[in-house]
């Protein structure tokens, strides 16, 4: 034992590990900072380490060239021993990392930990948050399946809307005028060199700031922050009741990180990697592109916002959101840190959170997208054709053949872009139905050129039967005769 100690001392004399420990893992933090709420940052760091290790392994096999990228992913999944498992770890590691860095950001925001003297820590952390999202997007792109290809096309289209610089920005990102080999190489270089380098550099500064400024105390309501005495008070607190970050302060971090690691391993082993959905071949147009979950809310926002707002959002609002994120410590200057004394901050988190989750949920359903196969795959249900006349049957057939069902559901079956037609006869009179079919309007294209007059009559005759047995169809009150089903009133 003595010999072992001597050996340790021999190394310590040369490497000064003891002194390094005193200034890093062994530095003293306030007792209240060893809170269970303070575990998200270290867990994010754990995810980063998993990503680095698995990422380097994946790069041993992956080929960043469009003609072989997809094949190399399939090789990883099916041929390379444990390739599927490392891909799964990398995929789930990225999901957890995005989630944890977001939770870390929210926790720091709610606890007011970004306030004096930690403004710069927050700004560097915001850079880390954006870099993590950048890693997520570029990673999803170099999977180079159909979602990836069209995801790039969408980003390029967004860039193309920038005034003046749009064309140059798109060419710079694509590495030329179309999405091709240089585009993939660029995203690969961003994913494995540029953004990780940035991430590690920012992380070093972030940790340096944590070590220099210490970890913020657990916030207390009614104990406002005083810039004059803060540094003194902090040092006094640490001197009075401080504990070392490791081992006393970091037990909760270690346990939480172990739980996260277990969750990632379980997800990877039992759910597996994200299976690519077909090679990135633009001529395979029967595809329904969807982003990975963290960009679903953005995807939904672009579907739901009024079109005239889109340019404004892209050019002003999205950059403004980034600027606001970095400027948080300078916009929120109150001395109170505890969330109970900062209702505005709580409301902001709830509002942004609810908006993003709601948008992401809408993104999963995407009711604004036509259901491209509904016209051929979802026949009119029997209850809507039973006992109908031959003319009405022709109308029901036309409803299928003209792709109406891609946007219009019947009793919930079919597209959700337009209104469900199950009770349409109660809402529109025959005249209004004819007008709507021929001229369109309110997001519906006009079918005037693609329906002969007798087809319109048949279609409207069928639509007129779509009302519950106990509810009368809509009538034009100005014409006592009303509309006879299938016989639109003559003007």
């Amino acid at each position, binding site marked *: 034992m003595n010999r072992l100690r001597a050996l340790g001392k021999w190394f310590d004399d040369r490497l000064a590990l003891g002194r390094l420990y005193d200034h890093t893992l062994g530095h003293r933090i306030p007792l209240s900072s060893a809170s269970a709420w303070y575990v998200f940052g270290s867990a994010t760091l754990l995810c980063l380490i998993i990503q680095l290790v698995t990422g380097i392994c994946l790069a041993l096999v992956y080929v960043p*060239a*469009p*003609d*072989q990228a997809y094949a190399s992913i399939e090789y990883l999944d099916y041929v390379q021993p444990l390739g599927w498992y490392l891909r799964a770890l990398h995929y789930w590691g990225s999901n957890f990392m995005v989630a944890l860095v977001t939770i870390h950001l929210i926790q720091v925001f709610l606890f007011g930990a970004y306030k004096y003297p930690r403004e710069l820590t927050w700004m560097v952390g915001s850079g880390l948050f954006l870099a993590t999202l950048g890693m997520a997007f570029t990673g999803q792109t170099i999977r180079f399946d159909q979602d990836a*290809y*069209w995801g790039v*096309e*969408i980003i*390029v*289209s*967004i860039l*193309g*809307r920038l005034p003046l610089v*749009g*064309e*140059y920005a*798109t*060419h*710079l990102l*694509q*590495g*030329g*005028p*179309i*999405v*091709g*080999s*240089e*585009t*993939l190489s660029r995203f690969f270089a961003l994913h494995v060199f540029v953004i990780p380098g940035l991430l590690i550099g920012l992380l070093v500064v972030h940790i340096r700031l944590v070590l220099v400024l210490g970890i913020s105390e657990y916030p207390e309501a009614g104990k406002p922050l005083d810039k004059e005495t803060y540094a003194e008070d902090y040092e006094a607190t640490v001197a009075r009741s401080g504990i070392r970050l490791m081992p006393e302060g970091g037990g909760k971090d270690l346990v939480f990180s172990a739980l996260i690691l277990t969750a990632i391993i379980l997800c990877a082993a039992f759910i597996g990697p994200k299976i690519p959905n077909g090679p*990135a*071949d*633009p*001529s395979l*147009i*029967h*595809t*329904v*592109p969807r982003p990975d979950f963290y960009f679903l809310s953005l995807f939904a926002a*672009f*579907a739901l916002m009024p*079109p005239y707002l*889109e340019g404004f959002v892209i050019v002003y609002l999205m950059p403004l959101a980034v600027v606001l994120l970095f400027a948080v410590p300078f916009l929120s200057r109150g001395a109170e840190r505890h969330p109970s004394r900062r209702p505005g901050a709580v409301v902001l988190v709830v509002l942004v959170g609810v908006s993003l989750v709601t948008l992401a949920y809408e993104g999963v359903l995407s009711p*604004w*997208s*036509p259901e*491209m196969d509904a*016209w051929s795959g979802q026949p009119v249900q029997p209850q809507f054709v039973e006992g109908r006349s031959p003319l009405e049957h022709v109308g029901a057939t036309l409803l299928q*053949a*003209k*792709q*109406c069902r*891609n946007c219009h559901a019947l009793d919930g079956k079919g597209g959700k872009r337009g209104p469900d037609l199950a009770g349409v006869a109660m809402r529109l009179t025959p005249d209004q139905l004819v007008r709507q079919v021929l001229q*369109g309007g309110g*997001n519906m*294209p*006009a*079918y005037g*050129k*693609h329906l002969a007059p007798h087809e319109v009559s048949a279609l409207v005759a069928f639509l007129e039967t779509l009302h519950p047995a106990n509810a009368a169809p809509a009538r034009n009150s100005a014409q006592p005769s009303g509309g006879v089903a299938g016989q639109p009133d003559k003007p």
Partner: protein
Amino acid sequence: MEEHEHEALPPAVPPVSRRDFLFRLGLVLNTVAAAFVGIPVLGYIASSMFKGKAQQAWVALGNLDSFPTGQTRLASYRNPFTTPWDGATADVPCWVRRKPDGDFQVFAINCTHLGCPVRWFPQSGLFMCPCHGGVYYEDGSRASGPPPRGLYQYEFRVRGGHLEVRGGETPNLSEAV
């Protein structure tokens, strides 16, 4: 030694030691070196920004016979400027409409909203986009949904019984082919 050199200098000139001089010379030399490396690096990366129109060329889409009058069909062309490892990404699809009068319209596949691939439905004469629900009429004009304009159209010409388009650029709102 240095003490002596300092003393030898005329008093009007501030004394510059050999160390100072070497340090400043080193800064200048490294700045020049950085420019020699940095400017080519910027040029290398930015060269892609200016490829645009120079990379467009006329490419064949197919025989005139393969586009029956009154129909709209999917065609694709090989991007005129490719790398050997481009694979399928260089096969660019487009919709070719031959109007009843025999004239052509060649539409880019990309929705003008955010670039997703639009699909043609001959029964209703509509192009529909699977992403955000943009819809276009058979002549490419906007019918409904979020798109800010009609479908992008390629320049085309007929040469020796072939339909050719001017391809090589993915259209978007800042460069509508």
